[in-house]
């Protein structure tokens, strides 16, 4: 497999962002929720104590943004993983079973799709606590639906392949056929779709947190950092620009990587 240069560049950017998110906070004397009473709302500067400035309460924006990247990526990554397991399992069973079972299972997906999403999330946050776990649950509940559709379509295509019929003719039981013959052949489209799901879910998480429905202060996520930055946008633009740059870099890199993987693995549709 050979990736085109934008995808390889994206891989480098993603590597840098990830390394920063995981190791960066160790290099800084500050931690994400620590207040610096002497330096509130300081502009970025390499000579000062805060490389990327501080917010209104004197918290280090470099450390907070990286914390935000970590939380946002973790929520989106976990939700993608859940959507992978649920979506692949559900879609493969529906596609392989076909007929009435398939129709019934996919109509259930349609019903989930048609639920008003934001309303559903508000309901969840009211019923449950506003914690990252709640956001994760809300995102996960929706993330797997599209994956199930993609997988179901691919499975139906695979079922027409002769080697599946040959396995049936050899008396291999259906669960074994699904696990050993169908799922490994879904790897390409599933990997591509999962890579393209992560940035979508990061944006979704940011959107929810921006509205105040997601990760709550003092915990940081890209979404609530943006929300705070937006309030100071005129007087202290760096409070918006710093987390924004991290968000754009991460989402763009994931998008380019997904595109590159798609071209390399599976040139048709999706």
């Amino acid at each position, binding site marked *: 497999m050979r990736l085109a240069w934008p995808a390889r560049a994206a891989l480098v950017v993603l590597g840098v962002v990830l390394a920063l998110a995981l190791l960066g906070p160790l290099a800084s004397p500050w931690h994400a929720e620590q207040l610096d009473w002497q330096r509130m709302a300081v502009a970025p500067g390499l000579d000062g104590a805060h490389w990327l400035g501080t917010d209104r309460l004197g918290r280090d924006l470099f450390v907070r943004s990286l914390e935000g990247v970590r939380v946002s990526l973790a929520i989106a990554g976990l939700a993608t993983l859940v959507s992978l397991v649920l979506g692949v399992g559900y879609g493969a069973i529906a596609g392989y079973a076909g*007929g009435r079972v398939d129709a019934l299972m996919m109509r259930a997906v349609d019903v989930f799709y048609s639920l008003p999403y934001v309303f559903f999330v508000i309901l969840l946050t009211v019923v449950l606590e506003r914690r990252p776990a709640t956001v994760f649950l809300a995102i996960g509940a929706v993330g797997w639906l599209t994956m199930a559709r993609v997988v179901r379509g691919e499975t139906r295509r695979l079922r027409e392949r002769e080697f599946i019929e040959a396995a*049936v*003719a*050899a008396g291999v*039981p259906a669960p074994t056929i699904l696990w050993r013959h169908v799922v*490994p052949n879904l790897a390409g489209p599933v990997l591509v779709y999962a890579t393209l799901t992560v940035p979508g879910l990061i944006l979704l998480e940011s959107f929810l947190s921006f509205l105040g429905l997601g990760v709550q202060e003092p915990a940081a996520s890209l979404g609530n950092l943006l929300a705070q930055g937006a309030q100071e946008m005129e007087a202290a633009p760096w409070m918006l620009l710093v987390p924004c740059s991290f968000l754009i870099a991460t989402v763009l890199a994931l998008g380019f990587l997904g595109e590159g993987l798609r071209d390399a693995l599976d040139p048709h549709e999706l």
Partner: protein
Amino acid sequence: MRSIRMSSEAPLLAIEALAIEFAGAAAPLRAVDGVSLALWPGRSLGLVGESGAGKSQLALAVPGLTPRQARLTGSIRLAGEELVGAAPARLRRLRGARIGTVFQDPSTALAPHLTIGTQLTEVLAAHAQAHGAAARRAALAMLERVRLPDAVTRLGQYPHELSGGLRQRVMLAIALIARPALVIADEPTTALDVTVEAGILELLAELVRGEGTALLLVSHDLAVVAGLCDEIAVMYAGRIVESGPARAVLTAPAHPYTAGLLAARLTLDSPLDVPVAAIPGNPPGAGPRPAGCGFAPRCARALERCRQEVPLLLARDHGQVACYAPLAPAERP
């Protein structure tokens, strides 16, 4: 067929009045239209006919591999057990274990992402015949039986690492590893080079004879059937038009269609300036078929009666023929 095997032994496979229908836009399409045949243990039967004659549908109906939208009526019995309408779980247990299937094109019928060894041991595991190291030993022994060179290495290889002929040997190994009583081979050499075809056919013959396995071979190639099968059944438009001992049918055909197929063959000593004796017209397409004998519109010998009534398959000297105007022994090529 009964004429050749005057035994009181019950047939392994008995198909009676089998019809396979697909829902059509106007009227249902009959791919197979009232076929009866029997196959005894250790014998081989060749099903021949043009594309669309229904021979593959008939053969694939035995292990229950017809597409799910097809409607089957009639009876298929394997060692006395009815397969039409049998529970899917029961059919699953029979497939592979009692009925082995060899597909046409090994480059698409072998799973590209699994090793040869996995694909062989999977069949044994599916029927709880062997697991783990025992299954691996059985797989190795099977690969040696199909004379795959370097069998130990092959176990760990993927299908794309093998040539077409070797892949078809693997296909045979998969079909036979669970020691089925019946092997169904659907055009097993059509996708192969002529140079490897003979080797595969020879091997198939040897494998089924050695084990007393019955073979149902589907082919459009008369030479393949002549070389491999004891008996032959010629299909046209979903019906059997002539059947009997392969040698007798192929040297002295009674049905005009069989005679036409034989006349259309090319051999090395065919004169180059004489056109091939093709049968005029085309086989009937999918759709409602005319009344009477399916072959009548293309048949030079057709009588008025042929266009009105379907001729029954009746015993006639060496075998059975469904024709109102069969070739007399003197007219046969």
